[in-house]
């Protein structure tokens, strides 16, 4: 049973009762879809972001890097990808994180795995995928995200990227946890609450726009309409989706609901996943900030390897499905 049935009931009452729309009609369908999705996603987001932020207060990056640095590079890659999931990645923390890893002796390849996984697999994207697509697609996204991150880290590590670092990254720094940084429970709860509020404040307009546009497509575009343009048999759909995803950096909130509607109308799942990964993993502002520690050559390699990884995963899932 749908655990959100009270919302479905309320959406029915609102659209068919209070607004007096005809059940089964296009406008009614689209509106009902919009209200139900918005309420459900907002509730899920509040709960999940709060919970993940609370967990995060127990796993500060300073501790994460000591754990990773102690492991064999191979397990280190997997661990880095896994830890990237719970670590938030805003462009303002990219450089301290990168430098902190490198200076603690974490291999560069492993650091790149973390750098790819951290923005790509995050609780906002996962909650949206779970709420709108179901757990299967959410799990598929995590799997492909980890695959792409480990692939990128392994490839970049092989290229010996030390020569493409800016001098700032080569200086040795002090490593170790901040002495007085112990958080009390009230600090943790405050952090989680503020973080959830901040994120929601930032994403709600995109979320509403995405769900609204998705609802419109759901109601008005004929089923299977897009299969002819972006079905699994169209080889160019995946790379095109990746290119289209780059300028929409880190706007998972608006993109996921839209993509759901597109998949419904015939876009292949692998293509949709590739698009979403490109949106979250390849962002121009992040690259501009990382320019402080990486030479342009390394940034280009970074972007190229990640893009290739995403395209390959997209093909893989289109092929499997």
């Amino acid at each position: 049973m749908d655990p959100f049935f009270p919302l479905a009931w309320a959406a029915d009452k609102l659209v068919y009762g209070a607004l007096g729309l005809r059940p089964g009609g296009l406008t009614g369908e689209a509106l009902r879809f919009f209200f139900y999705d918005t309420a459900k996603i907002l509730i899920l987001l509040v709960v999940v972001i709060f919970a993940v932020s609370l967990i995060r207060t127990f796993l500060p990056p300073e501790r994460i890097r000591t754990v990773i640095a102690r492991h064999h590079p191979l397990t280190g890659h997997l661990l880095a990808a896994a830890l990237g999931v719970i670590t938030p990645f805003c462009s303002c923390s990219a450089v301290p994180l990168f430098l902190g890893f490198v200076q603690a002796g974490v291999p560069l390849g492993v650091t790149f795995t973390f750098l790819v996984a951290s923005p790509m697999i995050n609780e906002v994207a996962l909650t949206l995928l779970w709420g709108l697509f179901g757990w299967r697609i959410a799990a598929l996204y995590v799997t492909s995200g980890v695959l792409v991150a480990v692939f990128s880290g392994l490839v970049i590590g092989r290229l010996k990227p030390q020569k493409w670092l800016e001098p700032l990254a080569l200086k040795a720094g002090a490593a170790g946890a901040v002495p007085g940084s112990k958080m009390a429970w009230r600090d943790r709860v405050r952090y989680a609450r503020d973080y959830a509020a901040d994120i929601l404040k930032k994403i709600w307009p995109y979320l509403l726009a995405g769900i609204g546009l998705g609802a419109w497509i759901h109601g008005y575009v004929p089923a299977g309409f897009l299969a002819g343009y972006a079905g699994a048999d169209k080889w160019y759909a995946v790379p095109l989706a990746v290119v289209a995803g780059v300028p929409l950096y880190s706007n998972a909130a608006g993109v996921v609901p839209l993509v759901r509607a597109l998949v419904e109308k015939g876009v292949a799942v692998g293509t949709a996943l590739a698009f979403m990964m490109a949106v979250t993993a390849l962002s121009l502002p992040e690259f501009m900030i990382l320019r402080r520690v990486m030479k342009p050559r390394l940034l280009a390699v970074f972007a190229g390897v990640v893009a290739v990884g995403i395209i390959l995963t997209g093909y893989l899932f289109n092929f499997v499905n």
Partner: protein
Amino acid sequence: MSAISKIEVLGSGCPGCKKLHELTVRAVRELGFGVEVDYVTDLDRIVGMGVMRTPVLAVDGRPVLAGFIPDVERLKEEIRKAAGA
């Protein structure tokens, strides 16, 4: 009366860092310490302290809090502790 000579808030200009700066200024004023609170955006310094998260509260060049924004009471407590009072 305080043994502190320097209080800094370090950050990369993110909204949280500015908030911590404001709170710290208030905490210092409420404590009655006559110390300026500097706002530092030099990433080199942040990383040099061994910190990977922002914002950072540093007393006399030593990081005291990092990665979260406490309430004023906690800030006062930390500053008082660092002052050895």
